């Protein structure tokens, strides 16, 4: 068990020497973000439940707790972390999942991991251990530093503890599969998402549109029977593979792109190996493409593109930002980490 004082000391030393630190949890996401060098500082052994109150729907865990452990603890009370964050072979940690803002197929309906966050403790660049947010559902005291950490990939500090909202596990799920082309699939997904059906998944891959319904068996069985398509006996397998990013599109060493866009944006260009998730709002594309071209496609559809894998990892991989936006991020970095020791350059070369 790593103790907090050790972590603070390591940060303090790095800060006084101006030496960068590379934050590591389960090391399952070492390839997420840009190349970044620094002495490793590990949270993996800073783990375990701090407090769990099932009737309050809140759990607080140390950042090195794995999602698999978290899931088991919650399951013992018939609860769950609703955003279906990937467990990545059992080693992904809660801190890493929040830092990388990883949410699974249920995201449009249950919210992202950021949406479940109620509070964090973190060590800033001055080696101070600070608490923001808390363990209650509503808290507007001070700026929302807790949720700001989602996607920051450690740039603003070392997350040590996370309080999360949890939900009861639904009684059962049902998956319906329909063969459709991408254009039609996007249309159908959006139509379905606009109805009050108890959906928690709508994804298209390899010519198949998958829907997931949750709730009481009697209710969703009746709904599934009325939907066009086949009810799958082993439907959960698809969602697990999607969540864990083990479908073929995620495999291999080539380039992988992730586009965030308006859910009903047309499926136009380029032709290629696409996976459409989140009812159309998140789209994955594998293969070598021109970043500027993809960026203009995404921006036209109200969104952005990130180069998730492959290509030159020392070049920029996140969406291009205008100067004012960039300046704000740089000043925020300075506010949390004046010596720029945490995960230097992991998000952007200039951050």
């Amino acid at each position: 068990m790593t103790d907090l004082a050790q972590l603070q000391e390591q940060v303090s030393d790095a800060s006084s020497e101006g030496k960068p630190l590379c934050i590591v949890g389960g090391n399952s996401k070492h390839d997420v973000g840009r190349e970044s060098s620094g002495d490793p500082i590990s949270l993996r052994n800073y783990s375990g439940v701090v407090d769990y109150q099932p009737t309050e729907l809140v759990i607080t865990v140390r950042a090195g707790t794995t999602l698999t452990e978290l899931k088991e603890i919650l399951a013992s009370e018939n609860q769950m972390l609703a955003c279906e964050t990937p467990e990545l072979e059992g080693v992904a940690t809660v801190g890493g999942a929040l830092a990388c803002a990883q949410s699974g197929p249920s995201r449009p309906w249950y919210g992202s991991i950021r949406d479940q966050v109620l509070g964090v403790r973190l060590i800033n660049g001055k080696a101070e251990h600070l608490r923001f947010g808390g363990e209650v559902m509503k808290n507007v005291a001070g700026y929302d530093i807790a949720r700001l950490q989602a996607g920051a990939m450690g740039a603003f500090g070392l997350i040590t503890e996370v309080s999360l909202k949890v939900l009861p596990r639904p009684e059962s799920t049902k998956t319906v599969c329909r063969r459709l082309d991408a254009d039609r699939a996007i249309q159908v997904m959006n139509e379905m998402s606009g109805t009050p059906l108890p959906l928690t998944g709508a994804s298209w891959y390899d010519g198949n549109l998958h829907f997931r319904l949750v709730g009481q068996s009697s209710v969703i069985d009746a709904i599934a029977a009325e939907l066009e398509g086949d009810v799958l006996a082993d439907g959960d397998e698809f969602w697990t593979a999607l969540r864990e990013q083990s479908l073929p599109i995620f495999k291999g060493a080539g380039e992988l792109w992730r586009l965030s866009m308006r859910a009903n944006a047309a499926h136009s260009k380029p032709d290629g190996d696409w996976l459409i998730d989140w009812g159309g709002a998140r789209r994955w594309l594998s293969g070598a493409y021109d970043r500027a071209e993809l960026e203009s496609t995404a921006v036209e559809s109200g969104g952005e593109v990130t180069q998730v894998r492959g290509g030159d990892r020392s070049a920029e991989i996140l969406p291009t930002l205008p100067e004012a936006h960039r300046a704000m991020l740089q000043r925020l970095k300075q506010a949390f980490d004046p010596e720029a020791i945490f995960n230097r350059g992991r998000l952007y070369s200039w951050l």
Partner: protein
Amino acid sequence: MLLINGHPASSVDTKALASKFRTFIDPDFVVSDTDSKRPFECDGLSVYKEMPRLVVMPASTDEVRKAMRLCHEHGVPVVVRGAGTGLSGGALPHPDGVLLSLTRLSNIIDIDPAARQARVQPGVRNLEISEACDEYGLFYAPDPSSQIACSIGGNVAENAGGVHCLKYGLTVHNVLQLTLVTVDGEVITVGNEGLESAGPDLLALIIGSEGMLGVVTEVIVKLLPKPSHCQVILASFDNIESAGDAVGGVIASGIIPAGFEMMDSYAIKAAEDYAHAGYDTDAAALLLCELDGTAEEVASGIDRCTKMFEKYGATSIRVSKDEAERALYWKGRKSAFPAIGRISPDYYCMDGTIPRRSLSKVLSEIARLSTEFGLRVANVFHAGDGNMHPLILFDESKPGELKKAEAFGAKILELCVEVGGCITGEHGVGVEKLPQMLVQFDDAELAQLNAVKDACDPDGLLNPGKGVPTLKRCQEYRSL
């Protein structure tokens, strides 16, 4: 001399400043005479009043951008105001500053029913959004009690909640994108029309930042499909503890009601007198528990919750039979504040959040404090999410009573922190709760919050003196 942005504070003459504004804003909307400025001297927390130098009402993002540039250039503080319904003095004007009222930015720019989103200007009223997309079977989920009047810009500034947040979340969970004008007049877009935005979650940072980090001039909100069925249970209890336990019981059994509200006997009586909702005025506590979803889901939920309430000793249980009855049951709760306003010359609304399991302890302590201070309290409580609104009744015309009410309120907030909760669930810190920020946060945390403020607003021009106490203020509060 106080220097702001290298200039002596307010060195620019007010008249000269007004004429500069009039070169790019319709002169009728650059208000400098005292009588016309009067309606802007306070927000919904009217015990705090201040006259701004100027009230300026821009009509576009571009006019806001120019206004911010002008103020930045001359080191003039800016306080942004929406509908002025805030309850923490967050929109209290600055005596040396410009009050930037965004009420003219009041258009719903676009509703995209297929993508389930609406692009709106900040002055659009909360309820207007749901009304406008009703024809598509969609609604905007956050529903603060002031939703008839409050604006979406103000909702973003405060991260407004409402009675349905346990299931549908707060403003931060229902906004996709913001257009933000920075203190120096640059325009940036935060978030996007999809559901994720790479990099640090600036959307979360801006939402709830009380107008201290930038000026929001456009908002894209997420719309949800209206549930096909909705019913509410009205359950009376003869003691608060049983009602509190019943709430815990329902949630532990795996049900997430769409709305879950509690009122104490004082609030029940006031609301009933005002709204004639059919509340049981002999009850010590009343629960409103709303279930929504498909017909089957609602029927099963109503059945399970009803049994749970029986188990915890409910003295009467009624279930809404139709939409009219559901609306009537809610009317009582939603009009609790004005109802209290009718029976007391003044009231002071608190906004702490507590872990639900501490409810009995907190309520009995509030009752004790009520005796100690000699002021009555009515309690309304968002039971599902732990956000409580004790209403302290007082009479401002009696010398010293306001001070007493404020001292009582401060005790309640400290109590909320002590049991593991927080000083504000949805009303914001504003000017009102600055002293309690020292209870919620330690010095290093406050310094970090101030560093975030400095990063976005180095000269401290945006809503100065609100939200987060400066180091100097902290020392003053501590020495009290």
